């Protein structure tokens, strides 16, 4: 893809007396390969201009978008596609706001017609208060979408069994919440997110809950393939700067995961040698 090289981390292995090898760290979902492991939403921004600048600063190659009625009263008002070009940034249509499988499937059928994309994000919500997913409806919608040729990336609870069932139903990515949507509480459930990562054969992305850069790094350190966020960037005092921070955090967390962290000890272990003390 045209933009594939712009945010790849180079994994340089520098060894004495050995040629330098450089490999790009990429991830693949439903046959599409991306360098950036950060997916950003396009909601809650003050303006289209700010939104576009934040996407650029984040290095994201995928943005989530919603499907809504056109304003018939003013059909000339600017559209998102005028500011974020779907030819260079992959639009991932989302079913935010849908509370039944039927609503979600109907929305994505229209999204497919509007954009021509099979890669979609499914979320079927259970209640407005927590925006927790309704897994019964989510699984039902996943099965219908897969039977109609869609490739759904699926927002879900942090339940390794539910994640496995979604994967068996044909979900192309598993996207457990780290905390409720828009809460900014950070990754509340590291153990279950890790269990999902270990059990999955498709990409796992934390979707929802990230509040600041360290939260994104935590998600990546757990071995997730990526992180999806909206509010953490859009509601920052400086969204463009926060987008930069998130880009760095996702890359740092990814590198730390690949590097393999040190073991934890209960007591101190000096960094300087004990031998030769005066």
């Amino acid at each position: 893809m045209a933009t594939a090289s712009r945010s790849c981390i180079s994994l340089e292995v520098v060894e004495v007396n050995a040629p330098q090898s450089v490999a790009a760290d990429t991830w693949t979902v439903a046959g599409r390969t991306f360098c950036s492991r950060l997916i950003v939403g396009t909601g809650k921004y003050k303006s289209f201009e700010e939104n576009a600048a934040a996407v650029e600063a984040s290095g994201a190659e995928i943005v989530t978008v919603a499907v809504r009625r056109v304003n018939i009263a003013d059909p000339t008002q600017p559209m998102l596609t005028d500011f974020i070009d779907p030819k260079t940034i992959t639009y991932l249509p989302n079913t935010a706001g849908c509370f039944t499988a039927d609503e979600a499937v109907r929305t994505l059928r229209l999204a497919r017609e509007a954009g021509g994309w099979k890669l979609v994000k499914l979320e079927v919500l259970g209640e407005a208060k927590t925006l927790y997913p309704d897994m019964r409806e989510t699984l039902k919608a996943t099965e219908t979408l897969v039977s109609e040729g869609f490739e759904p990336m699926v927002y879900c609870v942090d339940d390794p069994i539910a994640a496995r069932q979604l994967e068996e139903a044909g979900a192309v990515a598993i996207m457990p919440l780290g905390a409720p949507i828009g809460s900014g509480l950070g990754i509340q459930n590291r153990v279950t997110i890790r269990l999902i990562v270990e059990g999955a054969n498709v990409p796992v992305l934390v979707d929802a809950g990230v509040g600041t850069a360290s939260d994104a790094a935590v998600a990546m350190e757990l071995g997730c393939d990526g992180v999806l966020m909206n509010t953490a960037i859009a509601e920052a005092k400086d969204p463009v700067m926060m987008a930069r921070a998130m880009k760095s955090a996702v890359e740092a967390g990814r590198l730390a995961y690949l590097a393999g962290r040190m073991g934890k000890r209960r007591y101190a272990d000096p960094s300087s040698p004990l031998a030769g003390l005066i």
Partner: protein
Amino acid sequence: MTEAAQEATICVTVNGEPRPVRGGSSVAAMLEAIGLDPRKVAVERNLEVVPRSTLGEVGVNDGDRFEIVHFVGGG
């Protein structure tokens, strides 16, 4: 409005609002009359998606219910 023109006007629902449309219009003609670029929207007619390639052929009938959507910012 003349009597003949009134006869030629049918009423449909677009995004939940009643809307008069010239009888015999295609969906593409209706979009044009509203001022919309068919390349930027998706159309559902009576709960069925109308493929973009057929917008010029599918006719608008009295009482049809349309949803016309596009992409907006979202999470």
